[in-house]
């Protein structure tokens, strides 16, 4: 039995389930196995770690029956009918239980997210910096400052290299824009009165790449400089503890830089051929992956 934690609209989950069943494997897709109508029971002590999930009119599925888990949802909860305070509490409890349960399973879990990623799904690129560099991958120079003179110094430094503008992006969201003209630089200076700003050297067009176990799948055709980094990308995924991870690479300052890391890959952003290979890679990992986990 394979468990796919996902909402019904996730194409990746839908395709993986189809591929599993086509290969004769039973699977269940559920957004959240810990709330009604499912019944979830997990007994844990120093010697015992036994969990089971029961769906209406079906026999319980025990931990030992689960061959693998694909995690595309962190435990979705319908907010309808909840007061905001209660909803926040229930979501915190759900996420806590789900994280731990994933680590209790000894079957392959893709991804078995470490707490540092589980609780920071929109983790800024800067947080990956050390690991990326240690894996031989480069990122652009990043500056955080609330000092206007420092921003101007960066602007002049980039200008001297023939680079027009800088990329501004908040640390806590995916938004961002290129700061080029005088009006935008003034706007940035105003923003610095409220909060330090995060600036990076602008980069060329980004190419998406997905690491699925040992497989590297590109969206489109990567440059030779990018494909040379494939061993580094594999190493990064292993060091990060992620079997399934998406990165964006782009040329900047005569080299290839990592400009984004996404622990929950955007399956739909890849072309048909890459999607099929992602599905094959995930099924392979689920059905042949190594057992681990804490129990």
């Amino acid at each position: 039995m394979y468990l796919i934690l996902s909402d019904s609209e996730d194409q990746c989950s839908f395709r993986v389930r189809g591929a599993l069943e086509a290969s004769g494997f039973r699977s269940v897709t559920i957004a959240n196995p810990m709330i009604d109508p499912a019944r979830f029971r997990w007994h844990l002590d120093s010697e015992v770690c036994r969990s089971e999930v029961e769906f209406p009119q079906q026999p319980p599925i025990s931990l030992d029956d689960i061959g693998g888990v694909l995690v595309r949802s962190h435990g979705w909860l319908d907010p309808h009918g909840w007061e905001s305070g209660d909803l926040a509490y229930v979501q915190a409890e759900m996420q806590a239980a789900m994280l731990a349960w994933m680590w209790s399973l000894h079957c392959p879990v893709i991804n078995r997210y470490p707490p540092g990623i589980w609780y920071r799904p929109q983790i800024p690129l800067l947080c990956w910096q050390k690991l990326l560099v240690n894996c031989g991958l480069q990122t652009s120079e990043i500056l955080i400052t609330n000092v206007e003179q420092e921003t101007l110094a960066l602007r002049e430094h980039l200008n001297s290299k023939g680079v027009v503008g800088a990329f501004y992006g908040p640390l806590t969201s995916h938004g961002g824009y290129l700061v080029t003209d005088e009006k935008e630089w003034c706007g940035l200076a105003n923003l610095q009165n409220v909060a330090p700003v995060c600036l990076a050297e602008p980069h060329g067009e980004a190419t998406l790449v997905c690491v699925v176990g040992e497989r590297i799948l590109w969206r489109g055709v990567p440059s030779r400089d990018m494909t040379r980094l494939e061993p580094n990308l594999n190493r990064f995924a292993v060091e990060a503890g992620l079997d399934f991870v998406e990165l964006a690479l782009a040329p900047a300052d005569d080299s290839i830089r990592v400009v984004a890391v996404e622990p929950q890959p955007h399956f739909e952003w890849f072309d048909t051929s890459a999607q099929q290979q992602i599905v094959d890679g995930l099924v392979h990992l689920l059905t042949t992956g190594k057992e681990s986990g804490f129990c």
Partner: protein
Amino acid sequence: MILVCGGLADTVTELVCARLQNCGYPYRFLDLGTYPKGFKIKWSWQGPIPNGYIAGPDWKVDLNELTGVYARYLGPEGRLPPPDTPTSAAPAIYNEYDTGLITLMEDLPCVVINRIAGGLSNNSKLFQALLVRQSGLRTPPTLVTNDAEAVVRFYHKHHENIIYKSLSGVRSIVRRLSPDQLDRLPLLCHCPTQFQACIPGINVRVHTVGDELFAVRVHSDVVDYRYAHAEGSDVTMEPVSVPPSVANSCLQLSHQLGLLLSGIDLKETPEGDYYCFEINPSPGFLYYEKYSGQPISLAVAELLHNGMHSSGLCSKRNSHTQAAMEPNTTKVNY
């Protein structure tokens, strides 16, 4: 130079500052209640280690001068509202402030008490319980469920003596499940909840500071001693030495989570077993230091000043740590 990041009204941060002052260890205070107002920062990354500075009203520290950072983050309360911003936007802006600081702390090469990554495990007590099982400490019989019938079975199996509490980082008061609450159990179907068998014995709180360990027995007749005064009861504490295997397990857990300072909640049973309930990455150790007299803040100050591998640690405390690590130890007298 040491950097302390916290709130002026936070008594634990105040204690750390006072101890640093008392030791003569230079430090700068970054007031998270007002930050970034009144501070100038420049942090840049060209490789794995950040460069730059932090400047206050009358001081400036280069990041490469720092020997240690102590950080205790604030909630939205007690913080200066961001300028020219609607109140509803304030939490998002505080998050942006904190994320910058947290990211900086993660990458600084000096001692940081504590980096956030390890501390996030505290948002799932169950995740911590899995680590505890591997450390050699005992985990209480626990049931996590949304199934009312399973709770009733668990309740009877453990002689109608079980407690319930949050399993996330949301603070909750530990309560005993009473018979009149059984009728409400069907509400559980909306959210998994944690139940545990009541473990008889005495609460033991362990603080780890780097490689040092401070243990204290907490005597109280209420289920959750943190709320003893609110329930009209008293708390007394006595410093103790825990068996070496327990001390090693506590240090192992802290190191595994990358925590240079932790507060670990144990229970010592009459049979001499030690159960572990939680590893707190931002412990309010003032409470324990005040009651027990243990020099926890001094150990923190020295760690911040000297780093992990210093030889300048106080010999008295070293002897206590040593005692805790040796076999057949008895209670340490302070």
